[in-house]
């Protein structure tokens, strides 16, 4: 029973972590839709959501309500069990995969308990992550099949074929990093990227010795975009051809689950890209000498954002906006003050940089969607099999050669 | 601590169920799946033995088995697709042009 007790104490810490993460994640998911619509709108010289709340900030809430209260239609002839299973599977797998992502250093201490800043820190975290994401195909495939509709079926087939194809590249592209780090543990991979070249260039895997994983990153990101069925690889939902793809027949909250799954996996993939190629939670600046001021970058960013929000908020169109936006700005400023307090910056460094990098990736995602035209299906497959996969293999070969040579 | 024999009994049961499925199912794909089930049972046995013997070999074997299963799956499914294309059915009892 001793063991159980030992595990029990850990559960006390793990459970709050799960709750917090879920809350943050779900909120983030909701606001990602807002973010995407906003960014795409601006790219296309539109305003995007504007009515519900200031700058449409309450739009996600409204959408959520709409999904919840819509009639839930199940198509005739659908395979009920599978039809229900598919969205559930998609979402739960997508969310689960976040569990192994470390947001900060391994030995993060809260309330006297040392705990990794992740739900769990596994030795084979990366593998588990791939394991979970690889199961994601089922959601799509089953959804397409169970709807008893040709559009869905074709969409499902397409997307699962696409996911299988690109999963290979995705996995292969990471091997270079694994070889360089010598571990599957995500925290350790990040740890291995510590240090700087010439005093200021971070030793991130992207540019790290012995063989910079630039190709690896490019492949990874391309494959990841395809894997998440995002533009320009979003053939699944090519409306012109397949209406809504595999989720044509889904409505209401089940539809929302697919949506959330997609955004959730976007986040996961961004996290992964950050961890594997961009040093994870590590700051891009050295912490010594003339670079010590970078400790306060989080605080400064929050302060600037808060002030800007206050200035913008007081001149906002609606009264609600004039109240809400400055309040938000004040909160940001308060956070900025908090982050500047002695001792705190060290805690904040990790999560801040990590989230910042993720945000950049997500922006790139949206940016891609806003600018790039969709691939043709056969081109997509050809591209995956004939360009990306060989390249990724080449990358592995060269990296391993480089490592062997560097050892000698 | 779980006794090794628990795992092995489970493995035997799964293997047996695989055999049963192989015998009773009529859809070619399902029959093929029952073979996969049997291979999985074997893997479980390997891991359990490897654990009990304090060796790693068993796990290496599992790795090989999985690779073999993957190769088999690729070829097997290709054969099944060809069959379906030529015969329009996946029922083993209807695929019988070789019976006399």
């Amino acid at each position, binding site marked *: 029973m001793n063991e159980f007790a030992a595990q029990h104490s850990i559960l006390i810490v793990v459970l709050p972590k799960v709750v917090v993460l879920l809350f943050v994640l779900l909120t983030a998911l909701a606001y990602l839709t807002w973010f995407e619509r906003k960014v795409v709108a601006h790219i296309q010289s539109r305003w995007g959501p504007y009515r519900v709340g200031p700058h449409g900030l309450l739009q996600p809430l409204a959408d959520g309500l709409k999904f919840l209260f819509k009639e839930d239609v199940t198509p005739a002839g659908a395979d009920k069990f599978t039809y229900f299973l598919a969205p559930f599977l998609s979402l739960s797998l997508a969310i689960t995969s976040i569990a192994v992502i470390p947001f900060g250093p391994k030995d993060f201490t809260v309330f006297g308990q040392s705990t990794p800043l992740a739900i769990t820190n596994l030795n084979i975290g990366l593998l588990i992550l791939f394991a979970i994401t690889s199961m994601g195909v089922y959601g799509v495939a089953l959804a397409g*099949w169970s709807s008893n509709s040709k559009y869905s079926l074709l969409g499902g087939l397409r997307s699962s074929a696409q996911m299988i194809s690109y999963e290979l590249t995705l996995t292969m592209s990471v091997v270079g990093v694994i070889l360089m780090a010598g571990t599957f543990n995500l925290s350790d991979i990040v740890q291995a990227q510590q240090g700087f070249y010439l005093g200021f260039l971070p030793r991130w895997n992207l540019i790290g010795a012995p063989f910079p994983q630039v190709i690896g990153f490019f492949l990874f990101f391309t494959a990841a975009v395809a894997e998440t069925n995002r533009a320009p690889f979003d053939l699944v939902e090519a409306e012109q051809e397949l209406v809504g793809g595999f989720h044509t027949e889904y409505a209401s909250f089940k539809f929302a689950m697919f949506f959330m799954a997609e955004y959730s996996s976007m986040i996961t993939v961004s996290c992964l890209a950050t961890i594997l190629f961009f040093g994870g939670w590590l700051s891009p600046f050295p912490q010594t000498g003339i670079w010590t001021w970078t400790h306060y970058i989080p605080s400064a960013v929050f302060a600037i954002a808060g002030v800007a929000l206050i200035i913008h908020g007081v001149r906002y169109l609606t009264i609600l906006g004039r109240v809400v936006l400055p309040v938000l700005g004040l909160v940001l400023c308060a956070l900025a003050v908090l982050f500047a307090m002695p001792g705190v910056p060290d805690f904040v460094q990790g999560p801040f940089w990590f989230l910042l990098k993720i945000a950049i990736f997500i922006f790139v995602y949206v940016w891609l969607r806003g600018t790039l035209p969709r691939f043709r299906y056969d081109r997509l497959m050809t591209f995956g099999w004939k360009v990306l996969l060989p390249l990724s293999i080449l990358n592995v070969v060269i990296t391993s050669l480089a490592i062997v040579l560097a050892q000698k | 601590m779980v006794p090794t024999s628990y795992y092995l009994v489970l493995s035997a049961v799964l293997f*047996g169920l695989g055999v049963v499925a192989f015998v009773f199912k009529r859809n070619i794909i399902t029959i093929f799946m029952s073979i996969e089930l049997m291979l999985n049972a074997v893997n479980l046995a390997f891991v359990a033995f490897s654990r009990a013997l304090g060796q790693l070999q068993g796990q290496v074997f599992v790795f090989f088995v999985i690779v073999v299963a993957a190769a088999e799956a690729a070829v097997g499914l290709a054969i099944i697709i060809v069959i379906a294309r030529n015969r329009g059915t996946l029922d083993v009892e209807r695929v019988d042009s070789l019976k006399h």
Partner: protein
Amino acid sequence: MTPQIAVFLVLAAMAVAGAVNLILQRHPIHSALSLIVVMVALAGLYLLQGAEFIAAVQIIVYGGAIMVLFVFVIMLLNAGEEERTNLSRMARYVGVPLGVVFLLEVAYWIGRATSHMAQSSPQAVSTRELSTLLFREYVFPFELTSFLILIAILGALVLARREDSD
């Protein structure tokens, strides 16, 4: 009952239920899903035995690749439900129980034969050791598997290719 045994029992029940369901289900997709359940349960059991790497590979290759292919093919071929197996009454009432008895007996014998074996400890195996074994001692079969995969690729290509494409 230690927690491990509890976890084992849950996972084992899951696996057996999945396997039985594989037999009972008439639609191949449902059978495939049952099989995936078995595989996931087995992955859990591997984790329970400290075989982390194998657990991950189990999910990635079996769950994420092989079974996806199955599901994919089932969808592609639009396979319908299988007809009821026309087992004679005799077979159903005598054959099936006999089969079950036989199965249990085999399981019993294997259980008995291995009951003296050391209990498995849940200490994790390092992937590094595993890979050392794989690439040193078992490098020959490892290389052979690459040929195996080559054969499989070639085969899938030969078989699935349509005549007009060449």
